[in-house]
């Protein structure tokens, strides 16, 4: 493959790649939407995204990407103008284009050519466009935009976009010199040109004067964004510089647009425009009703590099002549500062300038390398751990020195430090939170592609996509989810005929939902397919020799279905033949467990299957109750701790192989914590007063008490993975470094509870749908 070089500063490639992938994602989503419903708004959105992408590609000199996006843009131009009305024949080619675009973007990182499909796709899109428009022209009278089929593109970026709303701007740029060149244009000449060229009219008109960050690498792109936004609102009359000039990057940081409407009516739009990235100011000025006399602006006070003077109306000429000797635009700041003065010099009736715009109210974002964010999180974690130590030091100091001012000072400082550390932690944790949307959205495509291939009719419904997750969780949840969605498509959902025969609705539904529950995130993948039959699984485990036939029969239906999570079970020919289910579900389960999550499954034959994943919100810092159990310290995450109690062991009753005790009106199972975790059983260890320390925990409505040797206290802990240690470890979420530098084990309460109750047979004790009220955690 050939080496490629791009016109990029070191470090800018990241920006290009990120922004491009964002646009491509937007395009892909739009295509999928359009396939269902040809919505004009979505067409606009996609067009805009394609256009931006094209601009970016052209800017860095990615020739093949520019051409491909160009062809795509033309095609969407035809949809915009209404020349093309049927989207379906184009969907496959366009989605294939999206894939190739991703590869083309990857080339920027790789520095070499990774695909040779782009040229043929470009041609394919062009062919599709011309056959499509020809067919459309044949069926109706040929429209204006039928002119679109293009020859070889003469100069990069010289797009003729089908369906430009207004013809005036096309003419306005006839004079534009086709060569590329950096030019600096003052606002006054722009306006004179606009008004001189604009058809006279009596409707109220305004001037929109937009200034883009002069340091921006993407001026042309931003201008097009502005242009499209205004165009979409249907008020654009003409612009300077014209669209063609912008596309050829013959523009500077100023864009003037003549629009319909009074300034006050345009205020909303102004706000919208001001939110576009790198747009520094947007001003609205009322335009005079009729033609414009260039010499009516005799003394525009401006420090433009090239004075506006009398040459102003001949903008194109000025640029062509002066481009060469402009040199570096020296007084950029001054020009910016004087922009207001220039505008003031206009014979404008009214003028709206919002000073705040100059500070750019729009969200300012920077992209940060994820690894730096992780490192930051690590440091904050260490800080939080040491915060606790510092507080302990201050307390010890107070105990030793009493009222000594030094001790008081230490105490105050420790508290202040603790507050700041806490805020820092909140901020950093917040930085890492992202909506699950980013993961969910990719499944539109997965569902569409697989369903098409399997000839099934499936719709994907997404709920709760705004649910936020720490990115550490987010990045690992994608694969398991993909697995589950594919499983549903492959094995859960029936063919169209089968569904018809069964009288089930078409299309079939796969529902992805996410929500927060009990300090965790609950994600479900639900289908209304054929479901799973527990009887089949009972037979399968027995046939496979995993359990005896008797044991298998004794399993509850829910437990029988859960055998799909057994390692190795999935590959079993038996199951694959009988139900086709269970492919790789053990992988899903072990992935979830590594994260301190769990996976569960419920299914009704004929009705469908629901797989739910429960995950912690963050994998980093958690509040925990530290306890001593046997030879070690264990940390119980506070999210699962209900209360702590002291109980005499005499009140424990041995019922069918396990201890229970009565807590108010409930009967709660009890176990030694270390035994529950897998250590050998040992007798309860009452303290000198004859009491056993119990920690009552709760998960998914079930409660249980763990006996511990002593309570150490409540701490914030930095959760560290035990993943590299050895194999899966049920009931442990990880480990943490405790104050004395040794390692404590972090208990995964849901998993441990499940394990303990399952081990003792019988269903976990379900609390009758009582609201999750905490009974006050009494912790030393």
């Amino acid at each position, binding site marked *: 493959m050939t080496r490629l070089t791009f016109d990029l500063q070191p470090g800018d490639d990241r920006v290009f790649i990120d922004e491009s992938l964002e646009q491509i994602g937007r395009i892909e989503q739009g295509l999928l939407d359009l396939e269902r419903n040809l919505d004009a708004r979505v067409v606009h959105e996609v067009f805009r995204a394609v256009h931006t992408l094209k601009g970016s590609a052209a800017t860095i000199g990615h020739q093949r990407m520019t051409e491909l996006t160009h062809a795509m843009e033309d095609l969407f131009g035809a949809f915009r103008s209404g020349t093309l009305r049927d989207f379906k024949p184009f969907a496959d080619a366009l989605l294939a284009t999206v894939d190739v675009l991703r590869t083309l973007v990857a080339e920027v990182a790789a520095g070499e050519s990774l695909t040779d499909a782009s040229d043929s796709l470009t041609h394919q899109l062009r062919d599709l466009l011309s056959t499509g428009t020809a067919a459309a022209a044949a069926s109706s009278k040929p429209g204006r935009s039928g002119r679109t089929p293009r020859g070889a593109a003469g100069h990069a970026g010289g797009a003729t976009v089908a369906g430009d709303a207004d013809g005036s701007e096309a003419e306005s740029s006839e004079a534009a010199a086709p060569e590329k060149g950096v030019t600096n244009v003052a606002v006054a000449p722009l306006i004179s040109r606009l008004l001189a060229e604009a058809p006279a009219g009596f409707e109220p008109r305004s001037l929109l004067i937009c200034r883009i960050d002069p340091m921006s690498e993407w001026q042309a792109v931003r201008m097009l964004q502005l242009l499209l936004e205004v165009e979409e609102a249907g008020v654009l009359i003409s612009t300077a510089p014209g669209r063609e000039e912008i596309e050829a990057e013959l523009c500077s940081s100023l864009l003037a647009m003549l629009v319909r409407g009074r300034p006050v009516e345009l205020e909303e739009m102004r706000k919208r425009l001001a939110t576009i990235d790198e747009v520094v100011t947007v001003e609205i000025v009322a335009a005079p009703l009729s033609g414009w006399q260039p010499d009516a602006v005799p003394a525009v006070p401006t420090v433009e590099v090239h004075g506006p003077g009398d040459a102003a109306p001949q903008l194109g000429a000025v640029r062509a002549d002066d481009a060469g000797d402009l040199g570096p635009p020296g007084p950029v700041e001054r020009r910016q500062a004087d922009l207001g003065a220039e505008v003031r010099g206009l014979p404008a009736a009214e003028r709206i300038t919002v000073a705040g715009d100059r500070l750019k109210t729009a969200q300012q974002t920077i992209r940060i390398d994820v690894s730096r964010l992780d490192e930051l999180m690590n440091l904050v974690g*260490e800080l939080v751990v040491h915060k606790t130590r510092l507080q302990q030091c201050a307390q010890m100091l107070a105990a030793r020195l009493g009222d000594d001012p030094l001790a008081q000072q230490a105490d105050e400082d420790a508290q202040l430090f603790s507050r700041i550390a806490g805020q820092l932690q909140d901020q950093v944790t917040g930085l890492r939170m992202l909506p699950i949307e980013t993961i969910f959205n990719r499944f539109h495509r997965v569902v569409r592609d697989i369903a098409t291939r399997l000839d099934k009719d499936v719709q994907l419904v997404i709920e709760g996509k705004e649910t936020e997750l720490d990115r550490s969780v987010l990045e690992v949840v994608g694969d398991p989810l993909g697995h589950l969605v594919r499983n549903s498509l492959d094995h859960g959902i029936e063919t169209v005929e089968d569904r018809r025969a069964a009288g089930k609705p078409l299309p079939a539904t796969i529902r992805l939902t996410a929500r927060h529950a009990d300090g965790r995130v609950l994600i479900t993948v639900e289908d209304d397919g054929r479901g799973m039959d527990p009887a089949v699984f009972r037979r399968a485990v027995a046939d496979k020799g*995993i*359990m005896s036939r008797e044991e298998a029969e004794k399993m509850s239906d829910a437990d029988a279905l*859960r*055998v799909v*999570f*057994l*390692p190795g079970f999935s590959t079993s020919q038996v199951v694959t033949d009988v139900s086709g289910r269970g492919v790789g579900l053990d992988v899903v*389960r072990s992935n979830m467990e590594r994260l301190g999550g*769990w*996976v*569960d499954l419920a299914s009704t034959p004929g009705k469908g299957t629901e797989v739910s994943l429960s995950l912690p919100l963050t994998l980093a810092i958690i509040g925990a109750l530290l306890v001593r159990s046997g*030879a*070690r*310290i264990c940390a119980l995450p506070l999210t699962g701790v209900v209360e702590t109690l002291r109980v005499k062991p005499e009140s424990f009753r041995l019922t069918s192989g396990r201890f229970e005790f009565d807590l108010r009106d409930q009967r709660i199972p009890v176990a030694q914590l*270390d035994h529950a*975790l*897998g*250590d050998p059983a040992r007798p309860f260890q009452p303290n000198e007063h004859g009491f056993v320390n119990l920690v009552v925990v709760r998960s998914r409505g079930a409660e249980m008490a763990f006996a511990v040797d002593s309570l150490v206290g409540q701490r914030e802990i930095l959760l*560290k*993975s*035990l993943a*590299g*240690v*050895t*194999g*899966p*470890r*049920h*009931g*442990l979420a990880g*480990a943490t*470094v405790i104050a*004395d*530098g*040794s*390692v*404590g*084990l972090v208990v995964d309460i849901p998993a441990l509870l*499940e*394990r303990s109750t*399952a081990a003792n047979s019988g269903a976990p004790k379900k609390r009758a749908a009582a609201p999750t009220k905490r009974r006050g955690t009494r912790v030393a």
Partner: protein
Amino acid sequence: MSNGSDTSDALQIVVCELGDEHYGLDIARVIEIIRQQPITAVPQSPVFVKGVMNLRGRIIPVVDLRSRFGMPVVGPTKDTRIVVADSSSTRVGLVVDAVSEVLIVPAASLEPTPNIAAGVETEYLRGIAKLDDRLILLLEIDGLFQIEDQSPLAGAA
């Protein structure tokens, strides 16, 4: 260090002692050698995993090489050391009776592992170094730390 030094083919090893045996670890894999640390036992671990320890904020598993090789486990002495080394998947601590020296083993002294080697399964061995009258078993760290996942129904959800 008997024969000359053809360092290009030579292997530099950290020599550890377990009972009367000498074992060698490729020095490129060894990060540091530290004294006995507090180790937290982890339930459900293979028996030779003593537990985990805190290595400057990083939690690493600690393997007792004696129990790994089926030798009787003895309490720590003043010579007991933990060799912190990198396997291909993770950083581990290896508990040994003592660390005696660092040696350069010329390629000529290296021999492939015989089929039956002193009760140690051969996948943990990458060869034997014969130096003068000494035999040093060269350990393959990755093989040492390969733990079969032997949890059938036990953890079924």
